[in-house]
């Protein structure tokens, strides 16, 4: 049977913006769920996705991707890759699967919003594929994590994380509820498809899959590559919508959505990807530092794209560049010090050689972040392990949900950005986090961080009660991933010096 070529029917077939007869337009596309920017209906007629795919082609390609990923997994299943992997790589896998899986699952319904409430036919079509993609991402994450469950209970968190009030999970929910789940479909496309998926998932998936391949973790690398190829397609829903917003005089609004989402994603991915790339990936397998990768990927490519569209780089660009040098280093200190609060077995990544690398990539690291590690090293060498886990809780930013940090040491700078709103004091880790709150205080006010809950007595005020509140079973609490073997080079150095 003769078939039409795709380009002969595709554009027509997805023009589904017919005039409704049984319901009002406002009921079909409620403002709050479809478009808070009040663009005229016909504005969406010009939506044109750069990446076109038919359902038949989609299914075939996805099937091939799955076959590829699962056959690599099957071929390598009998090897002892995990057992032989470096502790840092194990930590990376544990962190990734516990932290990313439920975000993939959340994205299924986020794309569902685009499918149902998007006002452009092409957007609804592409969002449908997006939901299907995210189902696959969830499944492949769960399946691959499950393979490791017999080796470490940390992988339970691929399933368990979203049902807990672990501090990392609270932080992720706060961020992705904001940009994925509580916006109208048009704003969602800018914040999620454009800012989050075009920019940041590339970080975690392109950079990490390259690291994984270099490290010899072909199962993980293949999984990440198949996910990234989906992202490359569905992330492109955002750009045509940005063009439409700008053409209709909504540049200021579009810029603000971008600025908010970029920063929120940055605060998630800086600790996640930054720690994985600069501390967990074994030194001999690192190609670029996190900063170098960000400079190339974000400062060059992503910003060029923003400017081509007629927008500006976010107003806080100088603050971002400073944060790029510092934030994940401070977070790495906290993640290791407070290791019982995480489901993964953190490694410090600060051997003498690693410190040289850090100093070279981030000049000044030793006299800032290094000073805290020096105190920690003294404690481990002297056997004072109880002094390597601070007694007080860390303060948590009321926007990012991560530790409120700065730069330690004599040349350091640690600043809190407080705000009093309706009788409550909020604390923010940066001017930008506070600015986001101020743009729409009622969206964020009332949320209680883990510290707020602690201070208000939601749980008994002791460390054990906090760990229980976070659903950290005793066997799940993170320990040092190397069992403190990392400190031995320092013992030898000191032995020589003595």
């Amino acid at each position, binding site marked *: 049977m003769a078939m039409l070529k795709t380009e002969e029917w595709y554009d027509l077939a997805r023009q589904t913006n017919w005039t409704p007869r049984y319901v009002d337009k406002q009921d079909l596309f409620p403002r709050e769920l479809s478009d808070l920017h009040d663009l005229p209906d016909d504005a969406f007629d010009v939506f044109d996705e750069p990446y076109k795919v038919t359902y038949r082609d989609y299914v075939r390609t996805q099937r091939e991707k799955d076959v590829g990923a699962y056959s690599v997994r099957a071929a390598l299943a009998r090897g002892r890759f995990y057992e032989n992997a470096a502790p840092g790589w194990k930590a990376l896998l544990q962190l990734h699967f516990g932290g990313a899986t439920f975000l993939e699952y959340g994205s299924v319904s986020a794309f569902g919003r685009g499918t149902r409430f998007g006002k452009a036919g092409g957007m609804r079509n592409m969002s449908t594929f997006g939901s299907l993609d995210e189902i696959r991402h969830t499944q492949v994450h769960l399946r691959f994590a499950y393979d490791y469950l017999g080796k470490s209970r940390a992988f339970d968190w691929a399933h368990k994380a979203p049902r807990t009030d672990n501090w990392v999970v609270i932080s992720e929910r706060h961020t992705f509820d904001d940009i994925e789940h509580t916006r109208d479909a048009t704003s969602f496309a800018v914040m999620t498809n454009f800012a989050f998926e075009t920019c940041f998932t590339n970080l975690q998936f392109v950079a990490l899959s390259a690291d994984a391949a270099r490290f010899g973790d072909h199962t993980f690398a293949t999984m990440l590559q198949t996910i990234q190829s989906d992202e490359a397609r569905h992330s492109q829903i955002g750009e045509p919508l940005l063009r439409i917003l700008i053409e209709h005089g909504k540049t200021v609004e579009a810029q603000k959505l971008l600025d908010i989402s970029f920063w929120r994603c940055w605060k998630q991915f800086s600790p996640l990807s930054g720690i994985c790339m600069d501390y967990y990936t074994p030194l001999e397998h690192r190609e670029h530092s996190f900063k170098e990768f960000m400079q190339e990927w974000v400062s060059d490519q992503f910003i060029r794209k923003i400017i081509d569209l007629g927008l500006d780089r976010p107003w806080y660009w100088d603050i971002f560049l400073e944060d790029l040098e510092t934030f994940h280093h401070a977070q790495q200190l906290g993640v290791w010090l407070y290791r019982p609060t995480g489901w993964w077995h953190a490694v410090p990544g600060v051997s003498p050689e690693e410190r040289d690398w850090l100093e070279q990539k981030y000049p000044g690291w030793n006299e800032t972040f290094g000073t805290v590690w020096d105190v920690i090293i003294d404690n481990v060498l002297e056997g004072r392990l109880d*002094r390597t886990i601070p007694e*007080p809780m860390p303060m948590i930013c009321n926007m990012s949900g991560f530790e*409120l*940090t*700065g730069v*330690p040491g004599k040349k350091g700078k*640690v600043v809190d950005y407080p705000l009093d709103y309706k009788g409550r004091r909020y604390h923010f880790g940066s001017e930008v986090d506070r600015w986001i709150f101020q743009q729409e205080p009622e969206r964020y006010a009332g949320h209680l961080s883990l510290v707020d809950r602690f*201070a208000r007595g939601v749980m008994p005020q002791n460390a054990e009660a906090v760990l229980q509140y976070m659903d950290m079973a005793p066997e799940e609490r993170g320990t040092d991933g190397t069992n403190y073997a990392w400190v031995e080079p320092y013992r030898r150095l000191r032995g020589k010096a003595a």
Partner: protein
Amino acid sequence: MAAFPLVVNFVGDYGFKVVLVDDALTIGQVASEAARQLAGVVVAPLAPGETLSVKLPGKAVPLPADVKLADAGLIHLETVEIHRADVGA
């Protein structure tokens, strides 16, 4: 007597900690308690005889050491800095 949470930066630390103290303590005792919890953990241990001061961020003058926390006019989760004596004492 009540538990009073403070947001503390022990100067030199990489961030802030939530130090829970009794509001019957004096500001000087609060500083000692913060030092017990943080000096030798995230910042260098105190030198023998080293003294501390407590400041609100951006303020040059320390809070009086002998005033009780409950009477110091601070709110729950107020941000304070703990300085070693050589700074602004």
